[in-house]
């Protein structure tokens, strides 16, 4: 069998390697890695800024992983073209590599919107990679004033990482609240309060109109002086290779539930892929690490001739700042679609459970994370709520709420 090629060397690639090796122990695998580091835990970069993770201890796998798995990594090389007919990948150095099966695990790229005067800013950064982190780490000084554009997960994690190291942090976002893609107003307000307590200043529902060197002028007129600018507006899935090869792409590379793209022998996984999201019953990019791992494994198994279907992905996020954690999964309900939202709240905590058609379809827990995975399992496994003691579950996530039969099955044998 001809060789496997994986484009990208992140979590999805690691999952893909594991999936291939589960089925095919021997055929060589080549990984094309634009980054020059062995795969590392990308979400740790903010903890590295904070000093809670050491760059040298951020590798996602033991040092002998690639060798043990018969993987050759081409570091610092970029795939620039896929020829699906010839079954080849061309690299930026001109090399052309033939593949039997190919997986595109190329992740995403920070999106930088056109902003007036951006070219006048001296020190600007993205926050996606180890190298981004190292650059910011070297630039951040005790007297630095930092402006972060984007109050999403990446911008705010970056803020947390820098908070105790710099003089001041300002965060702005066009959205009217922080973490707008995962939290509602009430949840976002709780998280924002925590972030403000740590000294962050916010401009929400506002954004930079223009830069003039070290000064940002906001749309609503405020002026923010800064030394370091971090652009964390959002990311775009890396779909170009597949699009240019004639494959179907949307927001991400379109895949079926076996992670196969529309092109023969080409699979896609992770942040670059638009796979099946069980919570909405449609394809969507789910740019989270667990999804990258599982999609990668599924793609790998199928590349090696296995038969794996991954149709249980749901959005989920665990995100915390300064000790306050927000855990969300599934989806919330829009006012016009009916269903029921169960809300419990207290000082510093909030719990929302979204119920529709007798199923838990989503939740948001802030400051009350205990055993949240039991709620997640109700969503993932679509467990009908009339088969569990839902009144008990409303109070707390507990497996005592399952029926004796379910408990026996869940806890009585090997799983």
């Amino acid at each position, binding site marked *: 069998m001809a060789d496997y090629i994986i484009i990208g060397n992140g979590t999805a690639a690691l*999952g893909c390697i594991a999936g291939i090796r589960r089925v095919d122990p021997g055929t060589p695998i080549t990984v094309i890695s634009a980054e020059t580091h062995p795969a590392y*835990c990308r*979400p*740790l970069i903010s*903890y590295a800024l904070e000093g*809670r*993770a050491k760059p040298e*201890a*951020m*590798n*996602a*796998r033991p040092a002998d992983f690639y060798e043990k798995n018969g993987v050759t990594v081409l570091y610092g090389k970029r795939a620039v073209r896929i020829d699906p007919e010839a079954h080849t990948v061309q690299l930026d150095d001109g090399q052309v590599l033939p593949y039997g099966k190919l997986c595109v695990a190329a992740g995403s790229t920070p999106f930088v919107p056109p902003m007036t005067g951006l070219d006048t800013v001296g020190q600007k950064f993205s926050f996606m990679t180890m190298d981004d982190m190292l650059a910011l780490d070297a630039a951040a000084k005790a007297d630095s004033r930092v402006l972060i554009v984007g109050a999403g997960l990446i911008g705010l994690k970056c803020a947390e990482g820098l908070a105790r190291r710099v003089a001041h942090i300002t965060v702005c976002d066009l959205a009217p609240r922080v973490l707008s893609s995962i939290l509602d107003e009430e949840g976002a307000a709780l998280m924002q309060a925590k972030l403000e307590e740590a000294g962050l200043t916010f401009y929400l529902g506002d954004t930079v109109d223009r830069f003039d060197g070290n000064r940002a002028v906001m749309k609503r007129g405020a002026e923010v002086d800064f030394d370091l600018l971090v652009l964390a507006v959002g990311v775009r899935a890396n779909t170009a290779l597949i699009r240019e090869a004639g494959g179907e792409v949307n927001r991400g590379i379109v895949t079926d539930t076996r992670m196969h793209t529309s092109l023969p022998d080409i699979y896609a996984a992770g942040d670059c892929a638009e796979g099946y999201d069980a919570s909405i019953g449609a394809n969507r990019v789910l740019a989270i*690490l*667990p999804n990258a*791992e*599982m999609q990668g*494994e599924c793609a790998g198994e199928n590349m090696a001739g296995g038969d794996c279907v991954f149709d249980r992905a749901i959005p*989920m*996020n*665990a*995100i*915390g700042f300064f*000790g306050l*954690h927000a*855990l969300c*999964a599934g989806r919330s309900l829009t006012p016009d679609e009916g269903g029921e939202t169960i809300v419990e709240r207290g000082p510093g905590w909030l719990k929302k459970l979204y119920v529709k058609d007798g199923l838990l379809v989503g939740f948001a827990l802030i400051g009350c*994370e*205990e*055993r*949240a*995975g*039991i709620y*997640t*399992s109700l969503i*993932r*496994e679509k467990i009908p709520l009339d088969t569990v*003691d839902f009144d*008990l579950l409303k109070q707390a*996530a*507990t*497996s*005592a*709420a399952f029926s*004796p039969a379910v*408990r026996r099955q*869940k*806890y*009585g*044998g*090997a*799983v």
Partner: protein
Amino acid sequence: MKRVYVNEEWCLGCHLCEYNCAFANSGMTDMATALKGKRIFPRIHIEESDRITFAVSCRHCADPLCVKACISGALTKDEADGVIRIDRSRCVGCFTCVLVCPYGALAPGEDGVMQKCELCLKNTCGEPACVKGCPNRAIVYEER
């Protein structure tokens, strides 16, 4: 592999397993010094409703969601013995494992870093302390 199972009809809900667990993982030799008057952070916990009680600890899943979801590489499955272990020096306390574990088997310890049952194989007890100390033999350690 041998795992810890609970026979819920025998569980008295006495919480002794939680104390034995906390003690076995305390690294101390005297139970009173280790636990008396302190809030304990056991790796097994009693689940209860008005009808039943039973003890829950890590199932050491064959295909563990927590390991796949771990953002820091702290959780791993030991391919040799099947035990899912946590390298607490790598854990950043992000709660992703808590979000995905369907059994509610991970929780932070006193220091905010996650902890979980590792079957006492590497502490001084050498075998699950919860099983050893269960007065009604409701918790067993066996192959199923």
